[in-house]
């Protein structure tokens, strides 16, 4: 009997789950572990969220722990702040990327600043889940990559998983953090599946997803898989590429990133957001500064164009593709070859 249970348990453990399910599991486990954790937002209750990420939480934890709100993002953010002031640990959902913008003042002027403002007496352990990124054929406003707005707002942590396991571990860590965390969920990966591992590095650590010696691809969230694909494709073209998955943009893991670039001497930064003033600018700038004497070529960026996110039928031209990254790699001044 125990054996049967154990093997069922093991089987369950080895079963693949989707990234959306991993987020759901992290929410459940956090809600079970700490009854101050509450989940709310638009349609997160009975419906279970438009991506089913909060599926079953209201049923299993009750309306007091997971609830629908009126349709108002500043209100969601502001009430989350008020609840956190009273000792709760709210996890709120902004239904889609561009719909966090109405909450921007609450995020920039309060969420990011309350701890500092009060010299640490009023920390705000709030997690803001933002499904983001393109490649899903969404109509306007449903494919933005808004991470840059948060990344440049001191006081926020900004993390983004690229794998099923990171979705779980980073979210658990985010909920446990006493600081506000913007949790960017690459919605294109919601249905990607993998076996879940519930242990992982802390917030603030990048990981090398693939070892390589010729150049480093630096990616996060939805572009990590594109980077890995590129590395595979590059092998045929004679390049041995290393892939770094940032996982956390703030704090930034200079150590891992710089160690990789110093080893390879070349770097390409990849993200979906528009390039100009995007997060890749920061990465390229700091890598260029910190690895100056190791660099064989300028750091290249492969990003979305400096345009509003295009309609579905054109988005494939906009998003970083394997080809475009390969082109960037090829441009890294390989005269010595």
């Amino acid at each position: 009997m125990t054996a049967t249970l154990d093997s069922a348990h093991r089987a369950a453990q080895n079963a693949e789950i989707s990234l959306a399910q991993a987020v759901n599991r992290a929410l459940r486990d956090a809600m079970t572990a700490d009854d101050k954790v509450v989940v709310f937002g638009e349609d997160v209750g009975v419906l279970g969220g438009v991506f089913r990420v909060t599926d079953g939480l209201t049923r299993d934890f009750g309306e007091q722990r997971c609830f629908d709100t009126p349709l108002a993002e500043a209100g969601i953010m502001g009430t989350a702040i008020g609840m956190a002031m009273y000792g709760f640990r709210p996890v709120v959902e902004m239904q889609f990327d561009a719909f966090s913008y109405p909450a921007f003042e609450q995020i920039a002027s309060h969420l990011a600043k309350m701890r500092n403002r009060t010299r640490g007496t009023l920390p705000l352990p709030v997690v803001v889940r933002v499904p983001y990124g393109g490649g899903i054929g969404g109509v306007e406003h449903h494919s933005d990559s808004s991470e840059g707005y948060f990344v440049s707002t001191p006081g926020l942590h900004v993390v983004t998983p690229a794998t099923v396991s990171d979705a779980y571990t980073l979210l658990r860590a985010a909920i446990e953090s006493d600081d506000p965390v913007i949790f960017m969920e690459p919605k294109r990966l919601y249905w990607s599946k993998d076996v879940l591992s519930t242990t992982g590095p802390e917030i603030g650590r990048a990981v090398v997803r693939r070892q390589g010696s010729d150049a480093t691809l630096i990616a996060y969230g939805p572009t990590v898989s594109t980077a890995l694909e590129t590395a595979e494709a590059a092998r045929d073209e004679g390049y041995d590429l290393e892939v770094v998955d940032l996982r956390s943009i703030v704090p930034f893991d200079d150590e891992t990133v710089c160690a990789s670039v110093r080893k390879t001497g070349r770097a390409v930064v990849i993200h979906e957001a528009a390039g100009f003033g995007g997060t890749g600018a920061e990465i390229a700038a700091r890598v260029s500064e910190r690895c100056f004497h190791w660099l064989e070529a300028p750091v290249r960026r492969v990003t979305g164009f400096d345009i509003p996110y295009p309609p579905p039928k054109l988005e494939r031209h906009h998003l970083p593709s394997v080809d475009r990254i390969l082109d960037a790699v090829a441009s890294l001044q390989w005269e010595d070859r």
Partner: protein
Amino acid sequence: MTVLATPDKTGSDFPLGFATILDPSPLQYLDEHGALSGVLRDDAPELAPERLLGTYRAMVVGRRFDVQATTMVRQGRLAVYPSSYGQEACEIGAMLALRPTDWFFPTYRDCVSMVTRGIDPVQTLTLLRGDWHCGYDPRRWRTAPQCTPLATQAPHAAGLAHAARLAGDDTVALAFCGDGGTSEGDFHEALNFAAVYQAPAIFFVQNNQYAISVPLAKQTHAAALAHKAVGYGMAGVRVDGNDVIAVQHVVAEAATRARAGDGPTLIEAVTYRMQAHTNADDATRYRNASEVEYWKSRDPLARLETCLKACGLLTDAVVAEANQAAEALADDMRARLGEEPEVDHRDLFRHVYAEPTPQLREQAAALQAELDADLDAAEHDEAGVEAAGRGLDASGADGAALGAVEAEAGR
């Protein structure tokens, strides 16, 4: 057809008094059974036979458009479609009360209105087909692009109305909004600006009882959304949103008041979203069939038909002509939406600014070079074909799955 005037519900001071506003029972001229309630004056323009028949025709055609669009989603010819089936009295009644010179601010749900205004169905569906964000010329049709970020169109309407007034024109701006949208800060700010400026704006809330899955009771604690008018010192009225005569009448009254300089009006039209939020939503997760059945029995088109039959206006010829027009529209949609339109990658850069920045010129050139290279490779080299196809392809299996779920969420 005898229609009696009831001065206390019509006339000049009609939607202004608090008493009217605070009574949450909606105005109705066509009752649930399709009978005229008799409170409208006989000479109300909405009751003129040719007007009633025009309304009928627009309702038949509008519904056919909606059904056809839903069909085309199932066939994969449209990415997503938020249906307004059952809300046609609002969609169409409001449009019929406007002049062509008035401005209209639709949401993602208001394709039927746009078609009623005269916009080409294919251009109407450009957004939902994924070709471009807006398929028609907003200036020509005095119709803003369909707005997705909820309630953000309301301040545009307030501003445009104020501008028209400053310009000395008698233009009115009408913005649609959902029950959910009324919770957004922009809704509040828009109504307040319009009231302070006494701008000729009409804020028309289609209270279809749900914001995706969230029912009205979780959206407001007030007895009626129209009550919000009180806080802005604004005219407010609650109307039966499945009664196309009542809708036309209250919008016409609001427009008349707006043109006369008497300021904005908040209209709450009580209706029901018969379909799921969009094709991809599963409404059974959050509401039960009996509720839907109840509202089915209040169908706005059926009510109008009953009424027209009762007054002898609905001849076979009228019905045949309307159906013919509807089928012609559906045929045209099938044909033209069946074609895959050319998309031009250069459009990515063309309209970001009046003149592309040097940065955009560089990027456009880089993309062009990339595509030219792909083409060369494809032409001259077999391996190239593979390379060209290696890019991210949203129509792949994963993309399609996500597209469906994404489609479910708010448009």
